[in-house]
């Protein structure tokens, strides 16, 4: 057994994870005067070196496809070093009969280096699901509790958007949005015909200089990471402000194994592996903020067993790992003949959509509960490997005919993706695999997954809507979708949308929830879980903005409790 090195220092707070949750907590806690240490399982990030912004496909030998063409698994080798579906030495398992995929990040900033920057507030009704339709559970907090923190987060990170007064998509503190692209005006026209709400999107990309960050230069490559930090990432926007306080210590390549509890029942240390040396180390603190990403946070707590907490730390309720959800995702796309004659023009914009469709059918009865929003994009993107794959599949021929076809078809396609709310169910959860361990001997997660009829009906509705939008302006709709099989109506496997959350949920009742409304463990006062593990439901809004709002709120509460000496 390796010798355990103890750090003699006791920090005020130890944060596990450097993404949206951890980064926000680091900023608030250090600015509040606390000494903070952060553990990150991956290496440091060097944007100048790691980000492949503005690199052309032909400048890389593999053109973005990766060694052996394998990078398509992780989207593309152009992307920020954000993580992947499979990590060497760190397996996870999926129970037979289930389909689940887990995208994990191992780098400072975590998945915020690559995320789509879609920054949507939850609506008031999203916190009151059970009261509204009898399914799932209500949150212990309301929109009014979180709204001031949405304001703070948006003001600090910078989000563009417009005031629209759509009840399913509350307005926020917005910078001016970019103008719609040509493709987006076509879709907007279709939506107007169909009475579908289509409004400027809300993305964490700054369109004006903000806190020393230059505005977006519209290269449309946010997913590659942004060297000028004009879009939001924890690594470039949250952590620098923590570092500025002089009270922040970042330990990279530190894989947390277990949170250790003292005789008083409070958390007192984290045991972690220093990856380069494989040495077992410990860091001590007076309070702990877990933000390792929802399922990783659940794993850490479930693996932190002691005589006081035989089922895992803060798990007297037994809910840790349960109520796992992801967004309902289904997609398709259309050919728009009016785009074939569109003159070539700069179509770049920000690295994401300039318009989107918030949930618009909240005022009527649908054949499913809850709702979804629609993201879309297309047109004259930077062509990459795979750009004309569909065309070549369909077009019989080669030579100049094929080339002309590629020219005329380039930029004529618009893809649509629905993102809907899944209702938590008893069949979707994660637990510690009884056998499998990672390369440091840490037990890994096993996933169980099942969509319910509600989600499948929602996916069907998405497909119908996409088709209506495309056809209403003379386009042809394409989707490889069948009504049955493992992915009915194109519903993606669990986890694929990378909105997996809810496995350490908050609630008022300590028997049915692990955390209170401030993300504080019911069982362990000095332990907080501030990532999306704490979510009670998974509304159709992308979770990142709410993660930051909840982490900000929890951190202010932690500061207040620390000052009162009541942790």
């Amino acid at each position, binding site marked *: 057994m390796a010798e355990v090195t103890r750090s003699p220092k006791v920090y005020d707070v130890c944060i596990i994870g450097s993404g949206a949750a951890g980064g926000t907590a680091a900023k608030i806690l250090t600015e509040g005067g606390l000494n903070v240490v952060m553990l990150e399982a991956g290496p440091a990030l060097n944007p*100048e070196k790691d980000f492949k912004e*503005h690199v052309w496909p*032909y*400048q890389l*030998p*593999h053109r973005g*496809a990766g060694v*052996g*063409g*394998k990078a*398509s698994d992780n*989207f*593309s080798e152009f992307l920020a070093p954000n993580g992947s579906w499979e990590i060497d030495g760190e397996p996870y398992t999926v129970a037979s009969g289930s389909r689940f995929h887990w995208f994990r990040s191992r780098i400072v900033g975590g998945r915020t280096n690559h995320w*789509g920057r*879609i920054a949507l507030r939850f609506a008031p009704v999203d916190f009151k699901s059970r009261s509204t339709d009898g399914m799932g559970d209500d949150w212990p907090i309301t929109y009014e509790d979180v709204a001031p923190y949405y304001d703070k987060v948006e003001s600090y990170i910078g989000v563009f958007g417009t005031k629209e007064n759509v009840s399913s998509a509350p307005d926020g503190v917005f910078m001016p949005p970019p*103008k719609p*692209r040509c493709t987006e005006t076509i879709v907007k026209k279709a939506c107007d015909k169909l009475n579908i709400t289509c409004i400027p999107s809300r993305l964490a990309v700054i*369109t004006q200089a903000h806190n020393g960050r*230059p*505005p*977006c*230069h*519209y290269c*449309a*490559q946010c*997913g590659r990471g942004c060297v*000028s930090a*004009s879009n939001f990432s924890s690594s470039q926007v949250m952590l620098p402000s923590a570092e500025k306080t002089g009270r922040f210590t970042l330990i990279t390549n530190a894989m947390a194994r277990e949170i250790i509890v003292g005789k008083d029942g409070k958390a007192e240390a984290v045991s972690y592996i220093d990856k380069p040396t494989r040495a077992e180390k410990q860091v001590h603190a007076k309070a702990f903020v877990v933000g390792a990403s929802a399922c990783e946070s659940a794993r850490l707590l479930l693996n932190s067993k002691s005589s006081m907490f035989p089922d895992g730390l803060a798990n007297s309720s037994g809910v840790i790992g349960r109520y796992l959800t992801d967004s309902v*995702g289904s*997609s*398709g*796309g259309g050919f728009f003949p009016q785009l074939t004659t569109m003159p070539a023009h*700069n179509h770049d*914009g920000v690295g*994401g959509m300039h318009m989107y469709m918030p949930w618009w059918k909240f005022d009527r009865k649908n054949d499913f509960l809850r709702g979804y929003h629609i*993201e*879309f*994009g297309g047109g004259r993107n*930077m062509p*990459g*490997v*795979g*750009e004309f*794959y569909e065309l*070549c599949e369909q077009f*019989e021929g*080669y*030579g*100049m005919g*094929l*080339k002309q076809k590629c020219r005329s078809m380039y930029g004529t396609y618009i*893809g649509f*993706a629905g*993102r809907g709310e899944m209702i938590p169910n008893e069949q979707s959860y994660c637990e510690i695999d009884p056998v499998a361990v990672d390369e440091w001997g840490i037990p890994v997660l096993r996933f169980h997954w099942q969509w319910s009829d509600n989600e499948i009906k929602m996916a069907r509705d998405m497909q119908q809507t996409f088709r209506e939008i495309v056809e209403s302006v003379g386009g042809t709709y394409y989707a*490889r979708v069948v009504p049955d099989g493992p992915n009915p109506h*194109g519903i*993606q496997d669990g986890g694929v*949308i*990378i909105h997996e959350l809810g496995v350490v949920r908050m609630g008022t009742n300590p028997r049915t929830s692990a955390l209170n409304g401030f993300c504080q463990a019911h069982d362990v006062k000095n332990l907080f879980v501030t990532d999306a593990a704490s979510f009670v439901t998974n509304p159709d809004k*992308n979770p990142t903005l709410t993660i930051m709002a909840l982490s900000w709120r929890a951190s202010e509460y932690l500061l207040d409790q620390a000052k009162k000496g009541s942790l």
Partner: protein
Amino acid sequence: MSSGISRRNVLKSLAMGAAATSVLRVIPAQAAEYAHHMIAAEKAATPAKAYAPKFFAAHDYKTLQTLCQTIFPADSDSGGAIEAGAPEFIDLLTSENKEYQAILGGGLMWLENTCTDRYGLLERSAERNPRPDRLSQEHDFATCSRPWRRVLLIPPEHDRGRFLHQRNWN
């Protein structure tokens, strides 16, 4: 090219020089020229070497080049697959991927065999027949070129990637 000009400086000039009011704004000409020269300088720093195929034997590589040329030729407006470096790209990826080796290595043998059976003269067509148009008269060729195009144009594994991986996923 002055070494004092870093990528970051260029970025800054791109961001600062643009008019704040216009959204789909034009990159300032000076900054664009900067970036252009920077890339040209980087390229010039590495002497161009002829690509040495890693997987395909010499005559197979020539066949590959001819196929690329035939499937996606140059014209007066732009280069074709050869100018874009498709043969190098295909060879590099194939050298690293067993599945492609089976499809492409085996496929090329099948193609040669089929051509030899049918046309005799056309064996090793790339070397001996500089005019691929005779091949291209045969509709069959469209079918047998499919595996090539399939690998040339790798499908993204996840369908969200197919539509959205360039800019619009989350």
